[in-house]
């Protein structure tokens, strides 16, 4: 058996482990081991590559690996759970950046040799360069936005994105048609990068779950393309696995908002459309922590509906403490989690898990919606659009058709809110004006702590 055969066999072992690992990530009980299995697969893939005869420049390889490890381990260890969305964005971005850099070096190497490589290598190389660069710069913007270093939304006309995309494809075609120019290749990376920047810049926070999983899928696809260019099966399979799974996740996120992926990237929600009519003559009822405490303590079933507001206020631990106190008093507490609550897929679940909330109390939208009819109190913490009944009833509402948590079907609703501002979508929420709804204004964390204090005194 030749050395190349050994490498191929190890690659097959590696990507089998990726598939098994991913499969195990489907259940909470097996997920930890699933992740470890995939990591072992990765170690095997790296070792297999290092025994390749083409490997040279050991010094540089060691430097690269050392820098990566020195940066990766501490940042992964120290990141707070609340900062997880931006960390995922950053790790994703560097992956895309690596693809773009590798493709440019490959192209330079080809030019030094026989000129433009044949199309079966050149096309995937160009594809990897474009997608990798989009993913890198898009992820950087996503990171800055999630970090809140970059605030607000930037209105970028959709023609800009369409123009940049067309330009990138045009440059790629010129190169593929036979033009041999390193400068043009760099320009391609630049234009694709600008596209990544502008596409993500105009996206609002509530769409971040779609954006992050799209960028993840993109990096996967670019890695698969790089694998085709390099004739490397491990890259092809692993990249494509991620590309496919990321696409599925993206579609699930977009479906959960009743929007198409194109709609997320090419038009802001409600932008240019008719503004939602305000609710005239409606009054809201505000309540006190003491009243909330009484309502909660005498309930049989309380459903907590967390949203991004809970993450911002870092209220997850206070919420978990309150739930524990209520359970001590015989109240059943469940959590109703909307698929796009927060800034990345599953964001609320991670935060609540960090606060030691058992995962079997975290209910998905379809499971919890049937429960609201027997719910005594629905406690909405920093969530807005995902509870807006207008999505069911008001046909001209921008969020009409979006699946929501049927909070309004509960016997009573308590909404914890910082102020009376509307949600990300800028739409008034009729839930707040419902006679059975009471609002408790204030920072989510201190409000919950106050309620907890009152419950303990009862």
């Amino acid at each position, binding site marked *: 058996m030749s050395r190349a055969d050994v490498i191929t066999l190890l690659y097959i072992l590696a990507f089998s482990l*990726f598939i098994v*690992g*991913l499969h195990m*990530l*489907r259940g*909470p009980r097996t*997920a930890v081991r699933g*992740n470890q299995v*995939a990591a072992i697969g990765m170690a095997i893939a790296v070792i297999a*590559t290092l025994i390749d005869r083409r*490997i*040279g420049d050991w010094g*540089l390889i060691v*430097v*690269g690996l050392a*820098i*990566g490890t020195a*940066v*990766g*381990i501490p*940042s992964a*260890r120290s990141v707070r759970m609340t900062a*997880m969305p931006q960390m995922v964005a950053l*790790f994703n971005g*560097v*992956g895309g*950046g*690596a*693809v773009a*850099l*590798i493709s*440019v070096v490959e192209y*330079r190497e080809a030019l030094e040799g026989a000129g433009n490589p044949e199309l*079966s290598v050149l096309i995937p190389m160009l594809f990897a360069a474009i997608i990798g660069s989009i993913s890198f710069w898009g992820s950087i913007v996503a990171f800055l936005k999630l970090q809140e270093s970059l605030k607000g939304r930037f209105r970028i006309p959709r023609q800009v994105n369409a123009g940049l995309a067309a330009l990138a494809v045009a440059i790629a075609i010129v190169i593929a048609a036979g033009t041999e120019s390193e400068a043009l290749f760099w320009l391609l990376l630049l234009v694709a990068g600008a596209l990544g920047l502008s596409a993500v810049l105009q996206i609002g926070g509530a769409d971040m779950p779609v954006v992050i*999983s799209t960028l*993840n899928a993109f*990096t*996967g696809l*670019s*890695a698969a393309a790089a*694998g*085709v260019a390099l*004739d490397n099966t491990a*890259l*092809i*399979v*692993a990249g*494509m*696995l*991620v*590309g*496919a*799974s990321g696409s599925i*996740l993206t579609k699930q996120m977009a479906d959960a908002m009743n929007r198409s992926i194109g709609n997320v990237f090419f038009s802001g929600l409600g932008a240019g459309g008719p503004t939602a009519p305000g609710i005239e003559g409606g009054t809201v009822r505000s309540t006190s922590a003491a009243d909330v405490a009484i309502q909660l303590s005498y309930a049989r079933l309380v459903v907590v509906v967390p949203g991004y507001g809970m993450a911002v206020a870092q209220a997850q631990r206070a919420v978990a403490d309150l739930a524990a106190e209520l359970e001590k008093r015989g109240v059943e507490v469940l959590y109703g989690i909307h698929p796009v609550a927060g800034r*990345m897929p*599953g*964001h609320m*679940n*991670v935060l609540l898990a960090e606060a030691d909330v*058992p995962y079997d109390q975290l209910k998905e939208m379809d499971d919890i919606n049937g429960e609201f009819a027997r719910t005594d109190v629905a406690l909405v913490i920093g969530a807005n659009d995902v509870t807006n009944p207008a999505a069911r009833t008001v046909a001209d509402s921008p969020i009409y058709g979006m699946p929501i948590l049927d909070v309004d079907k509960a016997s009573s609703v308590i909404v914890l809110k910082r102020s009376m501002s509307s949600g990300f979508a800028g739409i008034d929420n009729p839930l707040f004006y419902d006679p059975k709804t009471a609002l408790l204004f204030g920072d989510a964390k201190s409000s919950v702590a106050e309620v907890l204090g009152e419950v303990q005194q009862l």
Partner: protein
Amino acid sequence: MDLLTEIAILVLAAFVGFEVISKVPNTLHTPLMSGTNAIHGIVLLGGLLVIGPADGLLEDVLLVVAIAFGTINVVGGFLVTDRMLGMFKSKPEPKAEEKDGE
């Protein structure tokens, strides 16, 4: 390997990806995403393979950065996923020992 074989592998891998990931509960969406995120760090292999033949300072620098990026992606991705998954617990089991102690 010829292009068509590679495309065949590509298509099959896509179907496996679709199949494996459908029906993941919301609870695990974040770890799933950061786990797959770590897997695409496999581009690291590309850096390792290209750095040998590459020459000149610019190419070396670009590839060291690429390898470092890929390593951050892999190491950081798996670690962060592991940390997150470590937090998911089901209902605490009744502590029999404590009762015995009473």
